[in-house]
């Protein structure tokens, strides 16, 4: 256990330069985008005097040279200060904090569903390759894999909100009702279904295919023959040995896809009006609210790093041959 703690600690330390590199790269990328926050604010107003834009720019500290801005930013981040969103008139950390929970909820639900359903369907499909279950699963995965996310979201809205009227079209809760307690939880769950399903479709397809392939591969291994010779039932072999080994590529994939998941949530949150980080990032990009955008990048980077550490730890739990080192 002690060894494991040391491992986590070391990985966290390794994460710091990664995050710093991400900050610097993002900073310059954002600076390459033409236009700045002051112009956008003035532009949205439909009219503004030169003095107005100049005052804004001074206030936003956009009048300083870029290296100075970068140095100031990195220094602030190192002291865990993400700065101030001049556009929104509040601190970046409070904005992100209020949006982080909805995003984690959405991503967690989508990922959870994709993993569970992906594993179950993948296992079912691998049971009899070429059988009708397998056929069904491969058509399903092809569909889920190839649908553009925003389109899938809109189609789900058309079918399940407008036609069947099962789920609300958008938002995280019925805002005019101001529910509390369990009714609020249920209300949020009801709003969560369609966006989480939309976000999960791609990963569902991915995990299904991966699981099916891994199961088929593992079932041909020598240890399966050994287990069978030992007298284990087919069910025991499948769940205890084959599935356990087949899970490893899935877990690797979760780590790799984490960044993509953050990207996918931008689209899903925008389509469903889900009040998360993705939508905030989308809005602040078009407003050139760089402080806020950088803050979101930093938090996303941390999220990805943390998930990858979790993935590494999960490896060692599932497969004792892998050492946390």
């Amino acid at each position, binding site marked *: 256990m002690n060894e494991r703690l040391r491992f986590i600690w070391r990985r966290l330390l390794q994460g710091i330069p990664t995050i710093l590199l991400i900050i610097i790269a993002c900073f310059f990328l954002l600076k390459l*985008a*033409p*236009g*700045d926050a002051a*112009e*956008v*604010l*003035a*532009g*949205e*107003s*439909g*009219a*503004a*005097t*030169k*003095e*107005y*834009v100049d*005052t804004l720019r001074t*206030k936003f500290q956009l009048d300083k040279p870029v290296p100075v801005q970068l140095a100031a930013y990195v220094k602030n981040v190192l002291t865990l200060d993400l700065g101030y969103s*001049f*556009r*929104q*008139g*509040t601190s970046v950390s409070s*904005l992100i904090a*209020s*949006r982080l929970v*909805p995003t984690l909820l959405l991503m967690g639900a989508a990922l959870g569903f994709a993993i569970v359903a992906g594993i179950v369907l993948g296992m079912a499909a691998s049971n009899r390759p070429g059988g009708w279950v397998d056929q069904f699963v491969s058509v399903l995965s092809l569909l889920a894999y190839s649908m553009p996310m*925003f389109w899938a979201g*809109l189609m789900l*809205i*058309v079918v399940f*909100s*407008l036609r069947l*009227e099962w789920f*609300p*079209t*958008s*938002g*995280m*809760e019925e*805002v*005019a009702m101001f529910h509390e307690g369990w009714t609020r939880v249920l209300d949020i769950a009801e709003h969560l279904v369609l966006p989480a399903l939309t976000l999960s479709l791609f990963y569902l397809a991915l995990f299904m295919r991966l699981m099916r392939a891994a199961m088929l591969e593992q079932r041909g291994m020598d240890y399966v023959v050994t287990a069978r010779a030992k007298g284990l039932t087919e069910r025991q072999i499948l769940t205890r040995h084959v599935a356990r080994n087949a899970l490893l590529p899935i877990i690797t994939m979760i780590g790799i896809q984490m960044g993509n998941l953050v990207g996918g949530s931008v689209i899903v*949150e*925008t*389509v*469903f*009006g889900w*009040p*998360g980080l993705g*939508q*905030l990032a*989308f*809005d602040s990009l*078009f*407003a*050139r609210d760089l402080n806020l955008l950088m803050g979101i990048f930093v938090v996303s980077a941390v999220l990805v790093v943390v998930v990858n550490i979790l993935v590494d730890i999960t490896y060692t739990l599932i497969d004792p041959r892998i050492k946390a080192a």
Partner: protein
Amino acid sequence: MTVGLVRAIPKWIATSLLLLAAAATAQESGGTLRMVVQPEPPTLALYRSTANPVGVVGTKIYEGLLDYDFSLNPQPALAQSWTVAEDGKSITFHLQKGVKFHDGKEFTSADVQFTLMEVLKKSHPRGQITFRDLQAVETPDPYTAVLKLAHPAPYIMRALSGYESPMIPKHLFQGTDLQTNPMANKPVGTGPFKFVEWNRGQYIRLDKNPDYWKKGQPYLDRIVMRFIGDAATRVAAVERGEVQYAGVSAVPYIEVPRLTKGKKVQATAKGNEILNPMVDIELNTTRKPFDNPKVRQALAYAMDRDFIVENIWYGFGKPATGPLHSSLKATGLYTTEGMPDYARPDRFEYAAKLLDEAGLKPNADGVRFEFTLDLIPLGQEWRRLGEYLQQAYAKVGVKMHLRYEDFPTWLRRVFVNYDFDAMTTQTFHQADPVIGTHRLYHSGSIIKGTVFVNCTGWSSPETDRLMDEATVEKDPAKRRAMYHELQRELAAAGSVIWVNELSLVTVYRNEVKDAAYSPLGTMSSFDRTWIAK
């Protein structure tokens, strides 16, 4: 007997008609209005931003000295009466008595003085122009405010709505930084609705102000304003009834006919009479061949404006005839007299003739010249406008390329770098040309780096003089004549092509009543809006 019956009938009819009329218009109190605001406002500081969503939220909370009817005549609001002095250099406002801010403090002339002199004149994007000649606001007593002007400024009387010039509480703002004052995002005003909470990314909640100075109003108990970033989802939310009201073209024009077909949703073009949006093409006259007025005029003719209005804006608007919006007809400033007829049947031939005269002959491929049109990225309508114009201009041998970039990039290209041939945009002309129109043509408005001002590079001493004189002219007849002259001069110059007047569309479900009762449309206070149960 017979006589009595005959006499009785009209009376009976009249009574029942009256009853019917009463039943049809009796406002019901109570209920929550769920509306969508697009996009989410960056701030609620209406006194320093004129952005549409800020206006939509802020006007429920803050009020102005005046309201306006659909002919743009001033109506009492926080000022119950007013007099303009003979020389036009002082305007006296008599304020309503007993008006309280949402925190319980009384609204007085000191608030008027503070708002106009310290806030709007100094940091409101348009107020800095509108109140340029305002020298002082005198407050002889708490209910009288006297505006002292260096020159007559007739346009001020059209700029005092709650949207354009919101009155803010002096006691909460005096001596603070307007940018960082927490009241910016927790607004306190005198309006019919109180700010309750802003849950970023989700909604803003406003509750009825029970102490509102208009007795019995507002009718709504609550307004919840939701933010839905995706246009298709907004449409679905209206269709499903999750949202009852979507203004300022939050629903794309292309969806309006389908939505209103189901008889549960209505759409109106009313409520644009103060903003007066117009679709323009602005030409960079410092670049060839747009330095030649004949080329500019040719492009103004070579299109079918009726087609554009019907097929791109789905009938919400009408062809433009000149630099002023036709809703200014009521003020007498707008004219078609002596203006070119852009709808002439031979307009394409005429455009080709003008291009010939400008010496731009078609080459072997039939192309006279090429240029790029930078479309303002406000949605699919603008792309379609570009695609139509591409075809229309091809008819007269002009090859046009389209460029569609994101908003900050577009702003920088057009207004900071002047790196464009031509661009298309929407201009809010406002209730008076001084506030919304001069900026496109005046030499003093060619300010590099300032957005939505004269980016064409064109001006002339003659038009500058007309605008300067009209700004301070207090005789309405003379002022009209000046603007009529100005319109003809600008048409001859052709630095801006006026495509069409645009009506921002308001879509609402049937249960929402008095949804568009003011020329401010979605930016009215909603004090008269109600919901039928």
